[in-house]
């Protein structure tokens, strides 16, 4: 295991960052709260809450339909957020950004709209064994209806994607939907190479970037992706908002998904004419304050710099891999790539025969928050031969103290269950 000793760059002042997150100063049973569940959902800085409260107390109205100044300010705030998100991921146009309720809806949107229009019985969709249920079940639902084949890219012993037979899997495939980073193993995939391979094979790509966009620089054009999805709540934004980005030509050609107000040009008793993008895909009142909150989250991350965020997490992951192994000893298994630079800050842990649920319960007594379970990736868990892991996931506000607390609590758990 390699990795630098430095756990933060000079521009990355974690003590200062932590002050921006009120929930982290919470004391639980006399102990400092150690939040290691950002992979499930991050916390958010005061600036994000303030942005939403400010909208609600100064400029709130429904968007897109009002002429009065308050409504115009609300619409501008909502559309500014769209522009911020577009810039954050290097999207060529803000109109290619579609706000959904979460990443799951975004994938379902593509499956329903692009999928029904483009997939037929006999076609193939390629997934990886590392996918989150959000990037499996929508395709299974559609496959059950249409009758196409789902093919799976495997992983190797170190938890890296096994691309040795990728060309065979992609042969004749119409869609390749894959994760940019596993939420269980932390494995990063080579999105650019995978997109290139898909393109060569004539397959459209959808990248589940839920775990990567919050943690490292993203450039959708450089990746060569067709669609990418991610969630606001994992990147310092509020709950209730997700993002779909797609290439304009693809979005333009797709039929609408949900029907209702705001997505039409015209409605008569006989039928309707859909609006252009992004309106076509945003039926009903959108997550207005949530978009504004997400915009403020993007501002906060830009302020830190995504390069610096990534650097911080690589260092802290290296520290964690080393410290946990040293402190807890060989009863501890850490899944995923051993090389910190090949992974994100997601550590799936197993402590001998103690179930993740029980570990997590003991850790909570030490105010250490980790998540036990299958992490919505049951096919991967089955492949790993494990029922549940205890997952610690890192973000910008975590420091070496958090890792030390985790290590110490794991030792206590080990001792409590006398192993």
């Amino acid at each position, binding site marked *: 295991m390699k990795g630098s000793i430095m756990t933060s760059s000079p521009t990355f002042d974690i003590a200062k960052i932590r002050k921006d997150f009120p929930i982290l100063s919470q004391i639980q049973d006399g102990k400092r709260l150690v939040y290691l569940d950002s992979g499930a959902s991050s916390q958010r800085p005061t600036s994000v809450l303030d942005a939403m409260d400010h909208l609600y107390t100064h400029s709130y109205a429904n968007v*897109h339909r009002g002429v009065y100044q308050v409504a115009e300010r609300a619409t501008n705030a909502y559309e500014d957020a769209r522009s911020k998100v577009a810039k954050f991921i290097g999207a*060529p*146009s803000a109109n290619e950004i579609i706000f959904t309720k979460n990443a799951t809806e975004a994938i379902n949107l593509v499956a329903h709209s692009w999928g029904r229009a483009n997939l037929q019985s006999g076609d193939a969709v390629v997934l990886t064994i590392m996918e989150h249920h959000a990037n499996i079940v929508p395709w299974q639902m559609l496959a059950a209806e249409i009758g196409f084949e789902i093919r799976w890219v495997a992983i190797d012993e170190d938890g890296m994607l096994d691309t040795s037979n990728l060309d065979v899997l992609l042969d004749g495939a119409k869609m390749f939907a894959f994760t940019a980073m596993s939420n269980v193993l932390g494995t990063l995939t080579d999105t650019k190479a995978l997109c290139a391979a898909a393109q060569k094979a004539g397959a459209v790509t959808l990248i589940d970037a839920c775990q990567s966009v919050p943690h490292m620089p993203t450039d959708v054009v450089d990746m060569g992706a067709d669609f990418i999805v991610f969630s606001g709540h994992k990147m310092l934004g509020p709950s209730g908002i997700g993002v779909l980005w797609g290439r304009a030509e693809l979005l333009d050609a797709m039929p609408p998904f949900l029907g209702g107000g705001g997505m039409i040009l015209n409605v008569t008793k006989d039928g309707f004419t859909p609006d252009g993008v992004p309106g076509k895909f945003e039926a009903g009142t959108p997550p207005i304050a949530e978009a504004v909150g997400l915009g403020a989250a993007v501002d906060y991350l830009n302020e830190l710099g995504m390069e610096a965020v990534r650097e911080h997490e690589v260092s802290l992951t290296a520290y964690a891999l080393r410290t946990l192994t040293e402190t807890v000893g060989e009863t501890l298994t850490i899944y995923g790539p051993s090389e910190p630079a090949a992974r994100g800050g997601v550590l799936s842990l197993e402590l001998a025969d103690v179930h993740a649920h029980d570990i997590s319960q003991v850790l909570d007594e030490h105010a250490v928050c980790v998540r036990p379970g299958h992490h919505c990736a049951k096919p991967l868990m089955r492949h790993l031969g494990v029922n549940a892991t205890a997952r610690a996931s890192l973000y910008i506000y975590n420091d070496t103290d958090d890792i030390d607390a985790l290590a110490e609590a794991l030792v206590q758990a080990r001792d409590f269950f006398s192993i």
Partner: protein
Amino acid sequence: MSGLEELYKEIIIDHYRSPRNKGELPPPATRTEGFNPLCGDEIVIYIDVDSNGVLSDIKIGGQGCSISQSSASMMSAAVKGKTVAEAQEIIGGFKAMMSVHGDALGDPASEATAEPEVDLGDLEALKGVVKFPVRIKCATLSWNTLTQAIDEATA
């Protein structure tokens, strides 16, 4: 009410109350519909393009607010009898005027295209609209629809 008076110039109200080139054209004229999905404004444009590429006739139907209706009326007067190339120049000039402050709902990457030297005449009266961003869509509805009509007529 200075803001309002800047928006609702006399000439705008005049075109709203007495729209030029209102009506329909029989086939084989090109008929194109436009909708402003936000407010429900609808416009129907009929154009005849003759064999010399001249926009020999234009008629306007539909319903809308004073800004969208007067813009359509002034547009029809400005392009009638012009060649398609000339009409397109006027369209470009008008859209450039409308994007001085940018269509706020647009694109972070796109820049306002350089304003060509087009004399917009009466249409200059609509310049005040850019101060009311929500209304820009009202002013440009007929122009977008005309672009589409020309595309169809010359396809």
